């Protein structure tokens, strides 16, 4: 796999420096330990910090700014960041109203944020996002993964924090949005971790991984590629089977690309998904299509549905000004 690299050890630092330069009005980069914060410190409010392995850009650094995150801690590619990064980020952005960590439910992320929370002196709470319905809920294992729905939690809770919600209110809201959000994806190709040099998994030209995670890790099954309409139906069956929406419900539909699939195809997925949701008597009230939670250059995409009420809709609509999401 050919990649733009100078020294693979420096890839993350160089990429972050480029991102900070591209968004000099929005972002401040700190190295050693690595974290990114808003350029303008937020007004007096609860601060939101997220983080995770790199390779999912624009998640999370692209969502730092007014109406969303206050800071993010990028780890090495597909490797969770470390507690010292989270502690330094919290110290830099805390305004005395508490720190909310938004964490994708992967063992590494959970353990590192947990250790940071144990060492924190400021009041803090954690929202664990586990929207991926490919992995069934079970008492074994780590449980469902946190994937593209994380953006929706960060956007909605970010708006509430900006409007003055307390730490407890942000935590409750984040848990509620998570429980109303479900995602599932399909991959056609693998991705290559730059330092590993070889693709993470082997997959034949005519095969797909159904229910794939955002690191190319396996989902429900491997099978032959099928028409988009059928894939969308199957993904939405799993998603709606988890959410049990009442007929007539309003939903937010997020079509997410994994990095190697053109927008041409993502909009096609959106078209198919709209048809399926309408046929189920649901109203697509808000839509977001694009590459937001990527897995390096993996081809494929995911669908996310969030059940909306008036409160969530107005928080979603609230102004946001970040590198990757703004309205």
């Amino acid at each position: 796999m050919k990649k733009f690299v100078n020294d693979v050890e420096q890839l993350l630092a160089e990429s972050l420096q480029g991102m900070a330069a591209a968004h000099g009005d929005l972002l401040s980069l700190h190295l050693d330990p690595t974290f990114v914060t808003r350029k303008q410190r937020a007004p007096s409010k609860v601060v939101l910090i997220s983080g995770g392995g790199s390779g999912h850009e624009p998640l999370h650094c692209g969502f730092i700014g007014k109406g969303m995150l206050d800071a993010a801690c990028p780890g090495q590619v597909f490797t969770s960041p470390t507690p010292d990064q989270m502690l330094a980020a919290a110290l830099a952005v805390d305004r005395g109203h508490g720190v909310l960590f938004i964490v994708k439910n992967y063992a590494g992320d959970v353990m590192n944020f947990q250790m940071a929370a144990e060492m924190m002196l400021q009041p803090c709470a954690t929202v664990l996002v586990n929207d991926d319905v490919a992995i069934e809920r079970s008492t074994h294992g780590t449980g469902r993964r946190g994937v593209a729905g994380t953006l929706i939690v960060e956007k909605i809770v970010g708006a509430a924090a900006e409007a003055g919600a307390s730490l407890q209110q942000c935590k409750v809201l984040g848990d509620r949005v998570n429980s109303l959000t479900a995602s599932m994806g399909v991959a056609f190709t693998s991705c290559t971790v730059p330092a590993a040099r070889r693709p993470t998994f082997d997959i034949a030209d005519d095969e797909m991984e159904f229910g794939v995670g955002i690191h190319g890790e396996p989902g429900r099954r491997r099978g032959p590629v099928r028409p988009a309409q059928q894939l969308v139906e199957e993904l939405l069956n799993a998603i709606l089977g988890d959410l049990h929406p009442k007929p007539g419900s309003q939903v937010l539909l997020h079509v997410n690309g994994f990095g190697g699939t053109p927008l041409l195809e993502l909009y096609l997925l959106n078209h198919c998904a709209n048809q399926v949701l309408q046929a189920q008597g649901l109203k697509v009230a808000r839509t977001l299509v694009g590459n937001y939670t990527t897995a390096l250059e993996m081809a494929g995409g995911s669908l996310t549905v969030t059940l909306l009420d008036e409160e969530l809709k107005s928080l979603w609509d609230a102004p946001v000004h970040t590198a990757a999401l703004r309205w």
Partner: protein
Amino acid sequence: MNTQDIIAAVEAVHAGILANEDQIESLDRAIGDGDHFINVRRGCEAITAIKAELLTLPPAQAFSRIGMKLLSTIGGASGPLIGSFFISMGRDLEGSPEPDEKRFARALAAGVQAIKSRGKAELGEKTMLDVLIPVSRLLLRLVDEGSDRDTLCAKLKQEAEFNMLATRDMIATKGRAHFLGDRALGHIDPGAKTSQVALFAVCDLLTA
């Protein structure tokens, strides 16, 4: 045991990991996400880099410093797990400036217990604990029986190898491999492999 011994052991583990790069990488690509080797190597390099500072510390504090350094260097799930292992060993050795084998065996058990609590994992879940738990139990028993060093190391290596290989027939319920379900069958757990490699390196150093 003094801090010089700890550093020699770390260097031996580092060399062992490098010598087994291909196997560790291919196991992790099969049932992990391909970053295990890189993360463990980065951890070993970080410890080597603070060698001079470590040499000024007694064993308890050296272990604790190693743990904190690994915690802030490795990331992923390995960081908190391996970091907690060393931090707990350090805490257990507090007040023992020159721990003997029995003392060390107890500290190792405390370290393994810390991995269990942090990772909320038990024996048989296809993780590094499948090597570390039986090895730590056997070490406690052998030092209790007053076993000589050569026999002790030979038996520990045997136990590590056997239990590392046994992860091949396990279905993972913890760690990245658990997403694979049945598909992880037939593959050795990369964390169990690294643990076996590390134990072999230390035993070979002690019996060289």
